[in-house]
């Protein structure tokens, strides 16, 4: 099944501004949540959001549908930009947060104001349930890699576990997710 963004992306590649607005409306709440999760700063998240969609507009022709759905491409652009900012921020600031605090953040995530909470769709619920069902030791390395952009060595240091253990946990965690998300993977193929 074609992803909802595919037709919009074809129009964006033909310089259709309205299509860009529609793609923004389709993805902005999800991306903003992701960027806020990474940066923990509302203003910075929205700055990166605007920059990411500007990049989508400028580089629309570089999107290759053979490499996955549009949504994944846009998510990747936004996440890379956010991680770029996060790394720059880390270079500026001493990273003093204790592991317990990070674990709490990872477990709960930054909560948006109640009035901005939008009902999750079925897809979101399935993914959230799958993640929550993962054993914590498998979920943490995956989240540290995805939301903080840490390397495998940094994750091993952060979690005080041998590198080999981290690699195994990542594999097992992604395999469990793959099994739990199988119906969605079929939809996106």
């Amino acid at each position, binding site marked *: 099944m074609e992803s909802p963004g595919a037709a919009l992306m074809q129009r964006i590649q033909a310089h259709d501004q309205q299509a860009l607005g529609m793609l923004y409306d389709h993805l902005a709440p999800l991306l903003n949540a992701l960027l806020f999760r990474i940066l923990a700063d509302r203003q910075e998240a929205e700055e990166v959001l605007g920059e990411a969609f500007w990049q989508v507009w400028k580089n629309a022709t570089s999107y290759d549908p053979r490499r996955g759905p549009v949504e994944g491409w846009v998510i990747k*652009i936004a996440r890379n930009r956010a991680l770029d900012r996060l790394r720059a921020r880390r270079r500026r600031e001493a990273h003093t947060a204790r592991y317990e605090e990070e674990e709490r953040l990872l477990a709960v995530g930054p909560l948006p104001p109640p009035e901005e909470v939008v009902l999750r769709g079925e897809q979101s619920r399935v993914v959230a349930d*799958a993640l929550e069902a993962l054993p914590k030791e498998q979920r943490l390395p995956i989240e540290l890699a995805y939301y903080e952009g840490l390397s495998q060595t940094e994750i091993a240091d952060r979690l005080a576990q041998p590198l080999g253990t981290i690699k195994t946990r990542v594999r097992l965690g992604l395999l469990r997710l793959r099994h739990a998300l199988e119906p969605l993977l079929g939809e996106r193929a």
Partner: protein
Amino acid sequence: MPEELQELCALYALGLLEPQAAADLEARLRAGDAAVMRELEAFRQVVELLPYALTPLPPDPAVRAQLMARVRAAVQESHTAAPPHRVPAHLRQPLIWLPTAAAVLFAVTAGWFAYDLRQQVTVLKTQVQQLRSVAGDHERLLTLLTSPSVKVVTLTGTEHAPAAGARLLWDTQRGAWTVLAHNLPALPAGKAYQLWFLTAGTPVPSDTFYPDAQRRGIVQAQLPTGRADIAGAAVSIEPEGGVSQPTGPIVLAVKF
């Protein structure tokens, strides 16, 4: 599939594989290893779904308005710069299509005017915000230029960008750099400019940035803490998001 290979695929999909191991896996892909392709594709899809676990967070409507205003401005600019449009030959045939086109145009235009007026108000509001932002940037730049604690250093273009140049404003009090680059070459798709602090050892990475329509770029960076051996600055072309070690051509450089 062997567990070891499956592990490599999982780590690759999550961006955790070391460069050499990643290159080895990519070589298998290029060689058409169908099992690796299937495994990677499945893990890639899983990773792409991760953010869907988050509760959607609608952004401030101003973000959308600013984006669309920026796009409109860029389109208008490109239209202004475009050469005169030549009417295609098939449209220069006897104008049998004209009455239909005129009727359609009239109907569309009436509805469009109402919509467009509302859009213009939004655009104008956004432009005011942008102008305020630009004025603020100029004021900050002027303050920086007239500050006694600011040193000015010139970066010159290398053989990869001989026409390019930049001024580095070094605020010695705040330990911050502002680099104003000009005549930057257009970037290939998927690339960005990245600033580097040159040291006695390996360069220290800083932020990435993009040139504007006038091929100018600005990047601000805080000097890395605890490094007293900053010996120069450089700008290179790197993958978007930046890298930890320079991999692309250096376009601007200076040694202090």
